[in-house]
């Protein structure tokens, strides 16, 4: 097999080779480390590479597998974690200068889970400072500078899981962990042409993760395929006494096996007609073709519409108020001025001004919205639309003015904690990826996985990868 191909193998293929001892975890880790060393800096993809500890973990994995102790499909698989997840004794900068020297003495629960199944952490992925909670105007709002899109390095990866998107798209690791409060997994997945799962709120413990808006923060994987996302999700999902927002023990865990087949149940699919007021012409063209595939392989697909209401406003206020509370010390001390982005330096002061009455009103509207969405999901198992209305933007784009568009589905999905999975569905004329997203009711993560797997079983877009110079 050409060396280039191995970097883009899905987890199932890598796992099979590792389990049958045809591929050494040490060799695979070294390959990804070499590639990450070469391309990571060019893409501003990593906050930190950890070659020593990665190779140490890989040697342990190799020894265990040689002795017949194979832990499962992530054993010996190299990955990267967004730099807002605590890893013992390593810097965890949250992408922001005020926290550049921050080191935790414990692992985030997600890291613990991945370590226990034998996955190998090869580095911390770059990210937008404070996951964009303070607002940002430019892609450069990161300690590492703007993350460059492997499909076109003059373009951005989207944020805030910017490094995670670049790493997976460039084949620098088998998968990466990202987080989403509003758009931070789905958008990088769309811009970078990779698969990304935003799990149901409460399915994955946030213990050891930076808090931005605690009632909306979620952790999920970016990977080659929907199936890969499912495998990683199965490893990281579950109740955690250390994160009181995780769902109860009997509802939190997720078991995935490819034998739970694509026809596990016939999905009732709704094609959203009002998710995006306007689509870029290149995206619209690709989406039209994707809609045909969806309608062909999901019999009985019907048009669906999102409920109308001030749901983006409510989501805005929840994020702003909770973020102001999460970073109150940073704002009050004035150290917020050390952030890179001019918007990030000041918007926290505005966020502090929201009243408790307005915040609670937003939460009341959230409950009404949850009921409206439950009613919609009485007719549909999965809703489908474009993951983003535009392809990747140039690095120097003013995001505040030129990337401002209504995003009712992002607001609704994140306000209600709904699972979503974005997968590549084509390319624009400029060879930039376009993503399709599947959204389901809270708790039904399997529905988005089943739907996205079905789409990928009939398309080849997830097998495309950029040529890196």
């Amino acid at each position, binding site marked *: 097999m050409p060396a280039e191909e191995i970097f883009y193998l899905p987890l199932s293929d890598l796992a099979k080779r590792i389990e049958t001892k045809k591929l050494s975890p040490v060799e695979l880790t070294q390959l990804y480390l070499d590639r990450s060393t070469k391309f990571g800096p060019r893409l501003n993809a990593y906050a930190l590479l950890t070659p020593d500890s990665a190779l140490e973990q890989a040697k342990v994995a190799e020894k265990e597998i040689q002795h017949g102790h194979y832990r499962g499909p*992530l054993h010996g698989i190299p990955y990267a974690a967004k730099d807002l997840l605590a890893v013992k004794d390593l810097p965890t900068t949250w992408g922001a200068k005020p926290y550049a020297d921050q080191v935790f003495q414990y692992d985030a*629960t997600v890291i613990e889970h991945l370590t226990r199944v034998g996955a190998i952490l090869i580095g911390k992925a770059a990210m937008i400072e404070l996951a964009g909670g303070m607002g940002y105007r430019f892609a450069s709002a990161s300690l590492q500078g703007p993350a460059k899109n492997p499909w076109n390095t003059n373009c951005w990866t989207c944020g805030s899981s910017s490094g995670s998107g670049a790493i997976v798209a460039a084949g620098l690791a088998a998968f990466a962990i990202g987080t989403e409060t509003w758009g931070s997994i789905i958008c990088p997945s769309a811009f970078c042409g990779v698969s990304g799962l935003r799990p149901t709120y409460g399915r994955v*413990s946030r213990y050891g993760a930076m808090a931005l808006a605690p009632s909306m923060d979620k952790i999920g994987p970016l990977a080659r395929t929907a199936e890969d996302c499912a495998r990683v999700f199965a490893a990281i999902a*579950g*109740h955690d006494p250390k994160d009181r927002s995780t769902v109860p*023990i009997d509802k*939190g865990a997720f078991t995935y096996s490819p034998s739970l087949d694509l026809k596990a149940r016939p999905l009732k699919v709704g094609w959203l007609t009002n998710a995006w007021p306007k689509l870029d012409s290149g995206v619209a063209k690709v989406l039209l073709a994707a809609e045909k595939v969806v309608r062909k392989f999901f019999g009985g697909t019907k048009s669906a519409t999102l409920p109308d209401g001030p749901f983006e406003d409510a989501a805005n206020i929840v994020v702003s108020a909770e973020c102001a509370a999460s970073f109150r010390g940073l704002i009050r001390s004035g150290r917020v001025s050390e952030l890179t982005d001019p918007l990030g330096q000041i918007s926290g002061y505005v966020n502090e001004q*929201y009243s408790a009455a307005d915040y609670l009103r937003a939460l009341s*509207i959230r409950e009404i919205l949850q009921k409206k969405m439950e009613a919609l999901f009485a007719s549909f198992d999965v809703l489908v639309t474009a993951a983003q209305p535009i392809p990747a933007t140039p690095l120097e784009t003013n995001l505040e003015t030129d990337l401002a568009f209504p995003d009712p589905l992002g607001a609704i999905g994140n306000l209600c904690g709904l699972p979503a999975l974005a997968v590549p569905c084509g390319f624009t004329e400029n060879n930039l990826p376009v993503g399709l997203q599947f959204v389901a009711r809270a708790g039904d993560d399997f529905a988005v996985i089943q739907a996205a797997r079905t789409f990928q079983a009939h398309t080849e877009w997830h097998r495309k990868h950029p040529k890196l110079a």
Partner: protein
Amino acid sequence: MNSKKGSGISRREFARRAAIVSAVSVLPAGSLPLDSASSKPLPPQSPDAPKLSTESQAEADARYEAILSHYRSRFSDTQKADLYRLCLLAQPSLDHLRAYPLENGDGPALYLKPLVEREKKAEPAAPRATSPAAKRP
């Protein structure tokens, strides 16, 4: 709290202060006492500023003044103009939110359910017990 020893405030005094605070919070922005520096004119509005009602404009202006009353020295003139723009931009969301009909009985969607449910169940021995991936071949 021990009001008898003078280290705290009495219930009556607490109620009196609360009444004053709540009255102040509903005063129009223009009637709030302004420090000498805050009497400076507001920065000019950018062309993309939202069109606001008189009440909403006053609220946005008051928000800007409130920030400056705490942190004025931290901002350059450019940042103050940007801050004022952000204060104005925040207002339409609040107006939309407040215009949405809510009944007194509409409860907030607080995420307390997992906590309540967990209290009825025994705590797991360890988080890993819930993750099946480690056990799968």
